[in-house]
């Protein structure tokens, strides 16, 4: 008997997914380097290695509780679709690499979300309705909030970079708009707020989800440390994409008109900017 050796093999199975794969595909060959007695050898040959694989996933989940707390609704749907253990089992290798660098929570969240997006994209279509949308929603909420938190608060009095006074709106075309804070855009198959609402009420039902493709904007406002959501139409999106911090509104209108990129009229563009200045979404220089 050798408890030390058995513990060592189990620990390696949990920590090293490639070793576990090798053990599963050729148990006897993989165990050759270990001094096991006959009973221990038989024990490993008859072991359901799927259970160790899932235990590794279970441990990975526990070691990522801080990440899960940031993506709580995504986690709820992972459980709803029986994907929690498969996902965290698959994430084990990345997680182990991450442990080596002792990353902070931000790095852990970014790594997990990147992994999960790839994982979910590999699933058969429509196998987990709403899951990719809620992941994207929580990610954009988190990312906009985090990024806005690293930006300086709005400039104080006397600055040339602030909401234009009412009279300046008369010469709107001369103003140079820039985004205030962080603005992220997400494309969704289902309404993310509807999904979030169902989950919050513990009443998620994928059969009640309607395909409602839409574009949503996530504004991280450094002044209020909050994230606001806007449902965007394509016209507004093209206007937002033209904001560089150096173009005047007049230039933006001319570019949109010349490129025929949008059905939005010059008056609608101006109206958008008036609202954007008043809400604080844009500032002018």
């Amino acid at each position, binding site marked *: *008997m*050798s*408890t*030390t*050796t*058995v*513990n*060592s*093999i*189990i*620990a*390696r199975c*949990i*920590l*090293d997914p490639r*070793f576990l794969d090798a053990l599963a595909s050729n148990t006897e060959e993989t165990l050759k*380097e*270990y*001094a*096991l*007695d006959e*009973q*221990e*050898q*038989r*024990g*490993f040959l008859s*072991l*359901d290695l*799927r*259970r*160790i694989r*899932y*235990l590794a996933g*279970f*441990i990975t989940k*526990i*070691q990522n*509780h*801080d990440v*899960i*707390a940031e993506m*709580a609704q995504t*986690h709820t749907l992972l459980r709803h679709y*029986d994907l*929690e*253990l*498969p996902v965290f089992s698959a994430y084990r290798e990345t997680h*182990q*690499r991450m*442990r*080596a660098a002792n990353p902070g929570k931000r790095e852990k969240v970014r790594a997990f979300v990147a992994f999960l997006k790839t994982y979910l994209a590999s699933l058969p279509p429509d196998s987990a309705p709403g899951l990719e949308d809620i992941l994207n929603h929580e990610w954009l909420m988190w990312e906009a909030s985090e990024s806005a938190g690293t930006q300086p608060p709005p400039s104080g009095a006397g600055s040339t970079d602030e909401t234009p006074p009412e009279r300046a709106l008369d010469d709107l075309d001369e103003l140079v708009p820039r985004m205030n804070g962080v603005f992220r855009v997400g494309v969704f198959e289902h309404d993310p707020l509807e999904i979030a609402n169902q989950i919050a009420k513990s009443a998620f039902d994928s059969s009640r989800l309607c395909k409602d493709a839409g574009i949503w904007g996530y504004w991280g406002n450094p002044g209020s440390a909050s994230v606001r959501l806007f449902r965007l139409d394509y016209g507004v999106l093209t206007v937002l994409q033209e904001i560089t911090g150096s173009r005047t509104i007049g230039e933006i209108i001319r570019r949109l008109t010349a490129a025929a990129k949008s059905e939005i009229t010059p008056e609608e563009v101006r109206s958008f900017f008036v609202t954007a200045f008043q809400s604080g979404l844009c500032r002018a220089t």
Partner: protein
Amino acid sequence: MWAPLAESSPLIGLAYNRGAESLIKRNPASADYLEVPFELLRHDASIIDLKQYKPFILHCASMSIAGSARPPLTTIQQIFEWIDRTETPWLGEHLSFITAEKPGASSHRDEYAPGEPYNIGYTVSPPMNEETITMVVESVDACQHHFAIPLLLENPPLYFLPPGTTMSQADFIRSICGQTSANLLLDLTHLYITSRNFDFDPRRELLKYPLEQVVEVHVSGVDCQADIHWDNHASPVPDPILQMLPLVLERGKVRAVTLEYNWPSAMVESVLVDEVDRVRRVVQRGMPG
């Protein structure tokens, strides 16, 4: 706090998390104590401030008591210091291993911690056999040499049977308790999980444990995924588990029952209060209400 209550009914406590902290601060009467992991105190010493609200029980997962890779002396010293600062009446530790030696001949090149033992970062049951018993007895003796308070060993859940196992967990634990001064921290949820994963009657098996040496009981929720039952510290303890508690109380010298609802996604405060009351009713009346 503890000594005068030694003869009274068991106290009901909460494993630490932010929710438990908030509850204890706003509603101090809701629970009798906080159980706090040594590893958390080492990471965030400010948690000791909560001792002004409730006494602490110190729990530990760092000693790898069922493994051959010993914890560094600095870890032992830190546990010693936190025993002193928390004034814990005993130290609970998992009857498990968390680290394991890398065999010298191993071809495994560990990028995570080259030259160091494997560190799972989570407690796992060892093979249950005579050799492991000898190893655990030596570990317990070493711990008792360092610490002046009783050591409680906690039964781990079994998700698979470790190769080399020759006896049941009940026999394994009974033998260890018979050869050491350690008492038992009986995690009823772990026992229940093991019973579901290995298809036996938990109530019948429970009676084979050395219940007369149980000092503390843990309860928490259970999850079933991939046809395997798992520990879940974010859901209420199921009735079949609570129904085992009176069997322990009438046979043991239980002084504390801890609700382990300490995962971040755990329940809202009102549910936490209800859960404490639910367990308290069982302790007082003997049956789940």
